[in-house]
């Protein structure tokens, strides 16, 4: 139950990677901050278990309706800490061309900012959140500062797969991992237990729950768990948002008044909240004069490709994903017949997730893959899915949540470019596994990850919802900072980029507030 009666400087909706970082930055700068998260607040040392199924509770499980040729409902986290509870800590940067695919390749749209604009914020997030890696190793990424920690050493599985990459003329890369390779700022080094996705039981994996959240609270921020925001309050006379309304764990409605609202609820719930917050001034959804809130729903086309080897690789040891990456097929290659590319990321999870990624197999084929689990080495192919304004998050007209509010409807179809791209990635994954010595290789079904794109960033009021500093074009004291702001999605994991954008936005907010421009 909220007892917050005062008008706070800022309400943050969603306390995950971006909301938690924003809370910390603004609280440190002296703002009074309240962060609300729909999920519970877990205590990692007590609540997290090395148990694949038990920890499924860390995933968003609220109902959604899907449609389209390729209906998808990509994973997101549930709880204070958001997606960082369940992520694998894979923290690559986007490459220079990722920010200008329209100019370079004639597909997608250009971002209103460049790699160089973000580079200092990438540097700072890597230091602050804790990212391990090898500077100078990746010939494909833009100029960068040093990593704060040496790379997590290749697991044995990664070493075997790296040989396959080399045989194909590629570059095996130590994945930038937000996992402490050595003790770092009161955090323990990773002990290779292999249960990253189950909510890291130590402090090795960078998780907002025990990094930015306590740092924000130390500066006075208040974090409310199990508090689901259902409306952003709007003052039409002043054209300002004025606070939020939310349901507590018992379903009671409350209101908090705020001078500024930051929405960081991920690329499905963020547009849903803006659409739910429609009012007389904004009948099609708050801050939606462009009509683009919810449009251009994107995800990465993905696939798990697994090989069986003669010797045991024991893939359950070490970081579950991405201690080894290959980005040799990341950029557009005119010979391949499609634009953009993908990253290969080493991936063999625990037996249940391992098998769950092979839903296209059954009978003897499935049994063989499970039987030789300890001998498996695998890739997760993470490809770039291009924006498509037919794909959208809307309010479902028929299905309501437990509070009687319409749930999100996700309409999604892959385009021809996406299909060709992921098939190329699957083929390359197979070739590297075979080159590394696999005697059996199986690809799972094409899947999706990383929702993005539903509140596009841009300079033009008609073709975007927010400006390059994540500020609503329509309402100056409303900010959106999560992956929904991405104009295009890159071909690798998105969290670090979303955090760098958030950090840049927080610097802007602090500067603008000091100048009195957000009142």
């Amino acid at each position: 139950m909220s007892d917050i009666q005062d008008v706070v400087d800022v309400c943050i909706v969603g306390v995950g990677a971006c909301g938690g970082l924003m809370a910390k930055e603004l609280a440190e700068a002296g703002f009074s901050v309240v962060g609300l998260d729909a999920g519970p607040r877990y205590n990692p040392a007590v609540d997290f278990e090395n148990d694949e199924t038990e920890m499924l509770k860390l995933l968003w499980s609220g109902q959604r309706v899907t449609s389209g040729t390729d209906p998808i409902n990509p994973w997101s986290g549930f709880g204070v800490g958001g997606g960082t509870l369940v992520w694998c800590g894979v923290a690559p940067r986007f490459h220079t061309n990722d920010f200008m695919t329209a100019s370079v390749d004639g597909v997608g749209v250009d971002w209103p900012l460049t790699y160089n604009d973000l580079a200092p914020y990438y540097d700072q997030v890597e230091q602050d959140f804790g990212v391990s890696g090898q500077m100078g190793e990746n010939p494909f990424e833009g100029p960068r500062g040093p990593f704060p920690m040496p790379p997590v050493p290749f697991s044995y599985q990664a070493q075997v797969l790296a040989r396959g990459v080399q045989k194909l003329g590629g570059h095996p890369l130590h994945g930038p991992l937000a996992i402490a390779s050595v003790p770092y700022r009161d955090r323990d080094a990773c002990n290779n237990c292999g249960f990253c996705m189950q909510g890291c039981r130590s402090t090795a994996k960078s998780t907002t729950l025990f990094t930015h959240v306590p740092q924000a609270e130390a500066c006075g921020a208040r974090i409310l768990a199990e508090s689901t925001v259902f409306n952003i309050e709007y003052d039409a006379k002043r054209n300002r948002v004025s606070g939020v309304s939310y349901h507590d764990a018992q379903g009671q409605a409350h209101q908090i008044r705020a001078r500024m609202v930051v929405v960081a609820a991920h690329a499905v719930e963020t547009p849903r909240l803006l659409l739910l917050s429609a009012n007389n001034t904004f009948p099609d959804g708050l801050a939606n004069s462009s009509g683009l809130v919810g449009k251009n729903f994107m995800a990465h086309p993905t696939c798990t490709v697994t090989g069986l080897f003669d010797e045991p690789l024991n893939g359950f040891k070490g970081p579950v994903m991405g201690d080894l990456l290959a980005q040799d097929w990341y950029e557009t290659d005119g010979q391949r017949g499609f634009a953009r590319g993908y990253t290969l990321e080493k991936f063999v999870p625990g037996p249940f997730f391992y098998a769950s990624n092979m839903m296209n197999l059954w009978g003897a084929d499935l049994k063989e893959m499970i039987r030789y689990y300890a001998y498996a080495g695998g890739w997760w192919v993470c490809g770039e899915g291009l924006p498509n304004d037919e794909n959208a998050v809307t309010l479902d007209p028929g299905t309501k949540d437990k509070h009687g509010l319409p749930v999100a409807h996700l309409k999604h179809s892959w385009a021809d470019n996406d299909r060709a791209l992921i098939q190329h990635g699957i083929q390359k994954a197979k070739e590297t596994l075979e080159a590394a010595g696999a005697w059996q290789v199986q690809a799972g079904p094409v899947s999706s990850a990383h929702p993005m794109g539903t509140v596009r960033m841009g300079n033009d009021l008609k073709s975007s919802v927010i400006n390059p500093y994540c500020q609503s074009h329509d309402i100056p004291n409303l900010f959106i900072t999560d992956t929904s702001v991405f104009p295009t999605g890159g071909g690798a994991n998105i969290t670090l980029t979303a955090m760098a954008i958030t950090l840049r936005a927080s610097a802007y907010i602090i500067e603008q507030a000091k100048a009195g421009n957000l009142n």
Partner: protein
Amino acid sequence: MASWQITDNKFDFSVTHTIAASKELVYQVLANMEAYPEFINDLVSVRREGSLYHFVARAAILTIPATLLVTEIPDRSVDFELVEGPVEVLTGSWLVEEGDTPSQTKITLNIHAETGARGEWLLRMTGKYVENKTDKLIAAFSDRVEALERGEVPTPVAEKGFMAWLKRLWARLFGKAAEPTPAPAVSTSGKVAALYRDDHSSQTLEALAATVLPPDDFDAGVQGLGFVSVVEMRARYEAGREELYTTALNAVDKMAQDMFGKSSFIELTFLERTALLDAARQNQVNDNIWRNIKPSSFFGALWEDVVFLYCTHPDTWMRIGFPGPSFNSGGYAEAAQPQKFMGQKN
């Protein structure tokens, strides 16, 4: 010290722990069940209705409601019995005793559970759950008691007045509740009506599972692991799941008649079962048989339940060389070295 055993489809568990706080305070925390969700994250809510307590708990992907009949013997014990919930029988008690010194209190948790025939998986899960959760529960209680002592949370109001005094006195003298507990409004029989435990349903489910993951020279797949109780548990607590399975169990028998002229799915050969399931998987079926259910959705659910049971079972882990949880034993220092198979070879 914890001890547990499973014999004859019954599970018994006991654990004792000492908390550095007064007996009165510890008892108050244990007995104040409505406050549990404030410090136990896996509990969504607890609502009291006389001596009945309605719990809603999170367990993996399921949200499970359960009703307990609770009997309090002040400063001595909190006894509970499942009235409605996921297993057939679950009884237990918290026992509160003075520790070795006056500032210490010994608490003992006893639990007894039964899941009935074909409930192997459920009994194992109950055992695992109780074992995993107990440490956390006791840690949560210890933290709560310490927080109370530091004044960080308001102390629960102890019952006052003549009746409370009488109850306490009675308990001290006779070691039981002063007043007989009112009979619960809910029948205590048939806590969980079995959905698919009749011979035909359970044999059909086992046959479907064996088609997805066939027994072979390596092992028996999910046979003997309690597949029926997995299906039942999800059917009971996940919307739409019961209709899916109930419709499918009828539909596969009708398909066996249509496709092969045999009376039921279990009469089919392995190859016939495979052909039938393949048709269902691709939605190449007579729609009348499946009514509102998409056969491919059923195939997906079946596949998921089979893989879930097989791949989370410690017997499978041992055979495929997965050692299971590793954090508490220190993880793997040798992850970067050449590896050895860590299971038991057949």
